[in-house]
């Protein structure tokens, strides 16, 4: 159960190695936190991340989770709840970025990214939402992207999956509100992280820690959507209306 300050007792991170996801977990930690579950495809990496979080009075568990194995998602969530009880906050942070050059030309690569990022996110989120509906409380943090507003040519497959789950989360979240479940959509811009190492940054680039601060503030304030950094909301409310020929020439990173 959350306490009156919105401090959760149990946190689930789907995508247990995600830099942004882990930053949100760290930002959420308080004396009230009892359990963190890192659901990762790579257990060894998950264990390494768990080591960095563990301290007295906090249980950090790593469980096997494959975003692509959509038919296992319901079972994984059920087992986590059976072991640790209520899930107060779930962060949905797994995604494949891929090389936009490759994925926009290779249907096989594109299909894999679309499957994990779109189908996998949907099945895992539905599994979490079902559990939270039954609990009568809970919060889901959906890591979307500014691509949720407009997809760039540099990585159309990745961008489209983010746009897709952004819309999915809006619709699902509105339905969940009556069940006491809060959906927060986080739309970061370019984030310096292991996922983006070696790529040139877009304007208003940010860090996982800054995204985490914005996300946790949004959780406490029960916001429906937050942008990181906040200014991107206004930047993109303009950019979405920019005519195609101009949009194509904008230096938005790769």
């Amino acid at each position, binding site marked *: 159960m959350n306490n*009156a300050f919105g401090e959760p007792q149990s946190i689930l991170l789907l995508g247990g190695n995600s830099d942004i996801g882990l930053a949100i977990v760290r930002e959420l930690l308080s004396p009230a936190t009892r359990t963190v579950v890192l659901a990762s495809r790579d257990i060894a990496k998950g264990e390494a991340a768990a080591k960095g979080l563990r301290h007295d009075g906090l249980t950090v568990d790593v469980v096997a989770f494959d975003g692509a194995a959509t038919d296992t998602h319901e079972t994984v969530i059920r087992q986590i709840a059976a072991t640790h009880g209520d899930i107060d906050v779930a962060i949905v942070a797994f995604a494949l970025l891929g090389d936009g050059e490759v994925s926009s030309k290779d249907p096989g690569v594109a299909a894999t990214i679309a499957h994990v990022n779109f189908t996998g996110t949907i099945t895992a989120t539905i599994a979490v939402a079902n559990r939270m509906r039954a609990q*009568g409380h809970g919060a889901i943090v959906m890591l979307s992207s500014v691509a949720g507003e407009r997809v760039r040519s540099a990585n159309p497959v990745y961008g489209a999956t983010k746009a897709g789950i952004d819309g999915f989360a809006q619709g699902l979240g509105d339905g969940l509100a009556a069940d006491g479940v809060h959906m927060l959509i986080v739309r970061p811009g370019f984030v310096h992280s292991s996922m983006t190492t070696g790529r040139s940054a877009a304007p208003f680039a940010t860090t996982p820690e800054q995204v985490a601060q914005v996300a946790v503030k949004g959780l406490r304030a029960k916001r429906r959507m937050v942008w990181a950094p906040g200014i991107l909301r206004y930047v993109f409310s303009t950019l979405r209306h920019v005519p195609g020929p101009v949009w194509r020439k904008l230096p938005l990173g790769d």
Partner: protein
Amino acid sequence: MAILSTVNFARRSLTGWGRTNATVAEVLEVPNHEVADVVKEAGPRGALVRGLGRSYGDAAQNSGGLVVRLFGSAHQAVIDQAKGTVAVPAGVSIDDLLRVLVPRGWFVPVTPGTRFVTIGGAIASDIHGKNHHGEGSFGSHVTSLTLLLADGSQVKVGPRRNPALFWATVGGMGLTGIILDATFTLIPIETSRMAVDTIRVPDLDSLFAEMTSPDDDVRYSVAWIDPLAKGRHLGRSILGRGDHARLDQLDAKDAIAPLEYTPQQLATFPPLVPPAGYINRLTVAAFNEVWFRKAPVRAIGQVQSIASFFHPLDMVGSWNRVYGASGMVQYQFVVPFGEEVAMRTVIERLSAARAASFLAVLKRFGAGNAAPLSFPAPGWTLALDVPAGSPGLGELLHGLDRIVLDAGGRHYFTKDAHTTPEAIRRGYPRLDEWKAVRDSVDPHGRWQSDLSRRLGLTD
């Protein structure tokens, strides 16, 4: 779910009086004779009874489960004039009950700062009032109660009849079963008025001294303390003492109808949420300053109504809305006598943090009772409201918790919305004893609440 003729159920979002941490449950309003059938249908998230929702935190919430509300009318109250007791359905509020009792010359043994609590809730929270130093908490005045158990059976328990289950139910936060009715002793009164002495006290040491020996002779005593005062004014407060006025203390006009009792609400706070920052350090400090200065330096024997002496905040309905969307927490703890330094440190920290807070209440507790989870214990208790959205409040209160626990103190379940299972283990060393009794009557965990889940009371 069984469809019963009189059952109204709906999936509803519930919070405590602090309006924090809403959760959704199936809420049913049922008459006493149908409760057993309804709770039998509870799923894995169990069932809980809810009174008027005046617990500040999550004590009367059961997310994803069943929440039952009881019907009950004060007209079903049976007063035994010879014994000075009353038997009432548990869903009756102190507000409704006083309207029946006071005109007949009786008063409830204990009333909290609001009369909008049910008798069942009063027992489950083992509530205390301004007379705790002399007369103890509500549970100490209960002679018997009927409890609906998890298996659907009913038992009558009291201090001499199955005392273990009785005392586990007193202060048991609804987790031993549903209290259906109760019988308790009353205070005989000659009038519906209070004779009140008011004293301005300049600082904390004077307050401790003033509340120690002279208070033993007064029935009701409580201090309102300004938590924003600092330095040599730290702990400045207004001490109110009183007792039920005797007939000879009333003037001729009041003496015509000495037991007339018609408490009224002057206003209701509108449901519109005030903008953030409506309650801030400056507005609160100004309010507290005015409040302190308007009190007489010393006024003896003033005649007041029951409502203005015991329930001043009830004059504004839904006053909790003043704290806006993020709600508020009420921080209440007790530290034993001899730990006055801890109390001072807590007040200093609160004052230094400038957490906008209206007047806090400081009270000297007398002896506790036999209930393992009853909050009151000999010592000093402080209660204050703070807007839950105040930045850094979580950290501040977690820090204060350590001071309280290190001093051998504890927190009040009915107010709590932030402590941890460890804090409860330390504060309530008889928790395991209570759990053993609880588990014996509810082996499958039918009775659950958000509070029990958060604090691990039923694990």
